[in-house]
């Protein structure tokens, strides 16, 4: 299992340090592809775009998901049984269908292709990821803690800020990181909706591949991989600090 999972990634990383032109023939260690990639304006612009889109989308999606999860708590709403699965359903819709649907929707209401549309679309497909993470935590949260706060003279607003939110915080953060990574890695939807000025890293990589698989592609992949892993580690670390 682990071998299948990690061997291709390992090869990818190793060859990103290849000195030669070919992505599959080892010609000695070198950082030249990293240097080359870093110097490319296109690469830098794509990186910035990716980070901006992922940050904005993750922030918006987490906020909305938190509000939704809080809304589903409180007193039961009619039809709630239907609404929770409805919010998670997008996870199983084929991504390309979502992409086409969003594209048609954007064109019909006149949203230009570009950063704003991209952030909006990413926000939408990130919501279920954040929602599921936050809802799972909320489901096991004991509401007697909030009653205890009420009992100790905290009105609903102060109860929320001094008890509910701090207890929910690790899940919100986890939801944010998950949304961030999902957005960072998204290819299909971005491909449909990105304008010329809003190329993201995966699209940039795809463009490079069409010119042939050089170790430069490996280098960009490795950078993307490292970014993702880094965020996961940050999340784990913050979580640890919280617990102390």
């Amino acid at each position, binding site marked *: 299992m682990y071998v299948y999972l990690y061997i291709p990634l390992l090869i990818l990383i190793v060859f990103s340090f290849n000195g030669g032109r070919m992505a599959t023939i080892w010609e000695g260690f070198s950082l030249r592809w990293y240097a080359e990639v870093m110097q490319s304006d296109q690469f830098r612009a794509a990186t910035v775009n990716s980070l901006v889109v992922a940050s904005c989308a993750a922030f918006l999606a987490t906020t909305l998901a938190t509000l939704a999860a809080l809304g589903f708590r409180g007193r039961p709403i009619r039809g709630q049984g239907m609404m929770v699965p409805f919010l998670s359903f997008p996870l199983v819709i084929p991504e390309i269908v979502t992409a086409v649907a969003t594209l048609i929707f954007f064109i019909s209401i006149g949203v230009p292709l570009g950063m704003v549309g991209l952030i909006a679309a990413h926000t939408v497909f990130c919501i279920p990821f954040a929602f599921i993470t936050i809802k799972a935590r909320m489901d096991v949260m004991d509401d*007697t803690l909030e009653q*205890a706060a009420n009992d100790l003279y905290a009105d609903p607003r102060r109860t929320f800020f001094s008890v509910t939110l701090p207890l929910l915080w690790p899940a919100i953060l986890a939801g944010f990181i998950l949304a961030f990574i999902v957005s960072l890695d998204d290819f299909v939807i971005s491909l449909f909706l990105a304008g010329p000025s809003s190329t993201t890293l995966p699209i940039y990589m795809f463009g490079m591949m069409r010119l042939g698989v050089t170790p430069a592609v490996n280098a960009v992949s490795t950078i993307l991989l490292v970014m993702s892993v880094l965020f996961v580690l940050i999340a784990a670390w913050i979580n640890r600090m919280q617990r102390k």
Partner: protein
Amino acid sequence: MGFLEVEAVSHQYAGTDAQVLNEVSLTIQENEFFTLLGPSGCGKTTMLRILAGFEVPSRGRVTLDGQDILRIPPWRRPVNTVFQSYALFPHLTILRNVTFGLKMRGVAKADRHGAARRALDLVRLDGFADRMPSDLSGGQQQRVALARALACQPRLLLLDEPLSALDYKLRKEMQGELKRIQRETGTSFVFVTHDQEEALAMSDRIAVMRQGTLEQVGNPSDIYDRPSSDFVAEFIGDSNLLNAAPDSQGRLCLPGGRALGIRGDAPARVMIRPEALRIAPDGNLSGQVTDLVYSGAATRFLVALDGGEETVQIQQTSTEAAGISMGDKVCLAYDPQQLWVVAP
């Protein structure tokens, strides 16, 4: 007029059709240790939730010091709760748990800390201020929950089975502590339990509940010695309930014809506690030992009475019980004053 008045409170949870509380009326005095006692599901927690403000009763009135409190939300009621699960805030230190209520009420930091120290002293947890709740044992967490509620100096403290999660020895110890704290602070306690022994040991008065109604309210000896119904007699401690009917001279007799030594003019249920019966050669009742359980300080016997299907439990100190074994014929003596006619 009492300090806390509960007047004809009935409650039905939204979306259900079962009446959880049925016309419950109670009066609780200032500085009283008042216990709600009853089997599981009889509505004890519901009553506390109504007093705390988490639940609004379908009907009835609750006044505290003459003021109607039903419309006051929990965060403005001068009432605090010790939850069964303790409900300590896991992300706050013990000190910040204990000062939480005062902080919400806008008490200055220095005063808050002073009050918290006093409350922690009271529950004998000074020196734990900077720990986290998860670092404490169950008994210690229970004390923190108590300190947190007491730090606010509530007029009324509600405790929902606060000792049920503790082991036997710790529970005994905390019973004494709670009683001491109640006396020292002069707060009225409404204490919920389903443990009759605990209720008898701690309370000034006890309300025995059954399926949403009050069965009897009284001090521990009223409840134990003079139960108002079979239910109370059987729920509180062990009891023997005998069917008796008056003979032509108005003496209450067992079905076999044996006179009990008290008078009555109608068939009645007569209660006698196991410890009021003793084995003696000149005893009024006679029977055969059918079972015997040794439990250290005391031995319990089951004795099938002659001339009837009645079986009674008796309890003897282990020295008194020495030399008696299964199948022996025995006579049982009692003081007729120890008999109690349970209201028919």
